[in-house]
């Protein structure tokens, strides 16, 4: 059913349909309406779940860890500082091979304190062993949770998944979302039946000490599973399409007017909507421009990116995060995708924009396309205000 929903409510609605048995969240540093909406659903008896109000994100992540380890589907959501406070537990959840799904409402990191959108939080946790899917709009945000549970809980995967959606831009923005019926969701997502769980009928030990004879293999196994995710995600997106009608292709990237393009911007998240608008406008004027939207940042679809861009001469990577002292997080992957390959774009320029909630406008995107006419640039900040950085008299 098509509904006009706030992004947070769209996520809460789809999570309800996924029937988690335990939800835990800490509401402050900072939070969205997602867990407030879920708390209301539990209070109203629409959702049969244990809602655990904890004293920190560290405990929120720990509570859902315990629940999934006991064999119950669980959910949490956070962003920014809260995600960082969870970080230690998030690495632990993937190391324990527990298929949790959580939302990260992408927001900037302090200091200076700033509650607005960029993607520094989740991108900084790229090595946590979580599948990361970035949503362009509220429909994708909702759908990726459903796909995320199905993927994470697959018995060959058993890894946690983080659905990243831009804070405020999506979480607090209203859009039309096609919300599936419970019966359809049930058909797509079977009840959680894990390979291993804490059960007095069959006691197992979880979270062992692995000395140098064993630790390396746990990380190798995780790396191998991420390769499997690259194969599994397209299969699941295929099933998703036949069940719900929406086509995410392989679920790894979306190619928008890239086939004959000579200039392509690579980006993730809601800014892709803005880029599509500019692409449409420039295409109407006969310019061969396009967008490559990266959906899966972990695992990173190097082959797909290579295939999509190998014949494009000029590529711009737009990052909404930085890695001070190095290439930006998306740019570094793009450059790696062409390392040692036969074909490659003539230039791969890297741009940083939108940090701390600075608007990325249609003009900002046009400027990036313009700058692609020049020689390769790295880490060029778009919409910078040089007057703020002038030496004081």
């Amino acid at each position, binding site marked *: 059913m098509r509904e006009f929903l706030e992004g947070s409510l769209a996520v809460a609605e789809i999570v309800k349909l996924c029937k988690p048995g335990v939800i835990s969240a800490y509401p402050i540093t900072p939070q969205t309406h997602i867990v407030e909406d879920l708390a209301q659903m539990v209070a109203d008896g629409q959702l049969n779940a244990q809602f*655990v109000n904890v004293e920190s994100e560290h405990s929120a992540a*720990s509570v859902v860890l315990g629940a999934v380890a006991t064999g119950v589907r669980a959910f949490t959501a956070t962003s920014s500082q809260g995600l960082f406070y969870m970080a230690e537990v998030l690495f632990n959840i993937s190391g324990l091979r527990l298929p949790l799904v959580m939302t990260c409402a992408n927001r900037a990191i302090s200091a200076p304190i700033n509650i607005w959108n960029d993607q520094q939080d989740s991108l900084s946790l790229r090595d946590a062993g979580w599948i990361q899917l970035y949503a362009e709009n509220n429909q994708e945000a909702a759908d990726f949770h459903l796909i995320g549970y199905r993927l994470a809980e697959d018995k060959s995967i058993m890894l946690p998944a983080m659905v990243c959606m831009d804070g405020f831009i999506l979480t607090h923005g209203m859009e039309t979302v096609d919300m599936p019926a419970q019966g359809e969701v049930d058909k797509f997502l079977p009840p959680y039946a894990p390979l291993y769980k804490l059960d007095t009928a069959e006691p197992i*030990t979880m979270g*062992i*000490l692995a000395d140098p004879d064993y630790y390396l293999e746990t990380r190798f*196994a995780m790396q191998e599973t991420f390769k499997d995710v690259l194969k599994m995600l397209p299969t699941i997106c295929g099933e998703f399409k036949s069940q719900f009608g929406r086509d995410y292709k392989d679920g790894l990237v979306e190619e928008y007017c890239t086939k004959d393009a000579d200039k392509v911007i690579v980006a993730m998240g809601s800014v892709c909507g803005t880029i599509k608008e500019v692409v449409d406008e420039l295409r109407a004027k006969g310019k061969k421009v396009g967008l490559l939207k990266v959906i899966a940042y972990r695992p990173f679809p190097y082959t797909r990116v290579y295939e999509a861009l190998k014949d494009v001469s000029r590529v711009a990577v737009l990052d909404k995060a930085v890695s001070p002292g190095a290439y930006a997080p998306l740019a570094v992957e793009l450059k790696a995708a062409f390392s040692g390959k036969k074909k490659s774009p003539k230039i791969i320029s890297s741009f940083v924009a939108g940090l701390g909630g600075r608007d990325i406008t249609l003009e900002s995107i046009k400027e990036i396309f313009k700058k692609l006419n020049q020689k390769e640039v790295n880490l060029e900040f778009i919409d910078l205000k040089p007057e703020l950085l002038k030496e004081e008299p």
Partner: protein
Amino acid sequence: MPNRFFQQSLKKNMENELLPPHQLLENDSCLTNNWCGGVFKPGHTACAGCGQATGARLVIEAAGSNTIVVNNTGCLEVFSTRYPESAWNVPWIHSLFENAAAVASGVEAALIYLGKKETTNVIAQAGDGGTADIGLQALSGMLERGHDILYCCYDNEAYMNTGVQRSGLTPFLTQTTTSPVGKRFAGNIRPKKPMPEIVNAHGIPYVATASVGFPQDLQRKVKKAISIKGPKYIQIHVPCPLGWRHESELTYQIAKLAVETGLYPLIEYENGILAAVRKIAQPKPVEEYLKPQGRFKHLLNNPEEIKKIQEIADHNIEKYNLKVESRP
């Protein structure tokens, strides 16, 4: 299909690998005590005389096999679950240093969702550092939210797993690697954090202290605790021969002396009220407790310092009314 989660499905239990089976039958008293068929098996790698190993065994044997255990990082986790073996014959999980109380909250919530909570005990357990320092926030949250969990703190009064560093439960004037004896300071300059009172202030139904020196008393308290619904806390005094620097055969005597001097009062709070204490017939002087322990060696020729420790014991005896009343 390769096994990508091999570390997660550990079902192999330890047997005593120190001895081949035929010798085990002859020599190991564990069989007569039914340890090997029990829920916490021998063959783990704890030090000789480890108070925590005994404490943990007493707790889980009292709680029984319908128990899920959540363990903080620490000695107990390290010596009992080194892959590919585990001493635990109950479902057991270790996550991090500070979050056992929160993970256990999730386990309990999941059991409620599954309709299994009425038949399953949940125990969260940690050392003194994992409880009173880094784990205090998660513990406070667990208590405040009213989860039906027994939290056991194995108090060996320092961070033993990492090399005997001072914790919030290290006693006054104790020598540790981070509260060393020097020209300016003679050991830990702060008194022991009053954890039982801090926990009791949360208004939970049951708080107790116990000691491996009094195993029956400890097991009685565990059984009592799990019979009560809601959050429970038991703090168990467990000598550590390595960190306390005493002979490994003295573990029980030293644990007993801590109680008999008044330095480790055995008390029970029920619904916030001090409900019972273990009386001391004839309090022993604190020197008897301090003497066999290297961590107090610097105090032994210093009557002024010993007096300060005696004052702590005397204060406990008065505060908790530990002395047996003399008959008129």
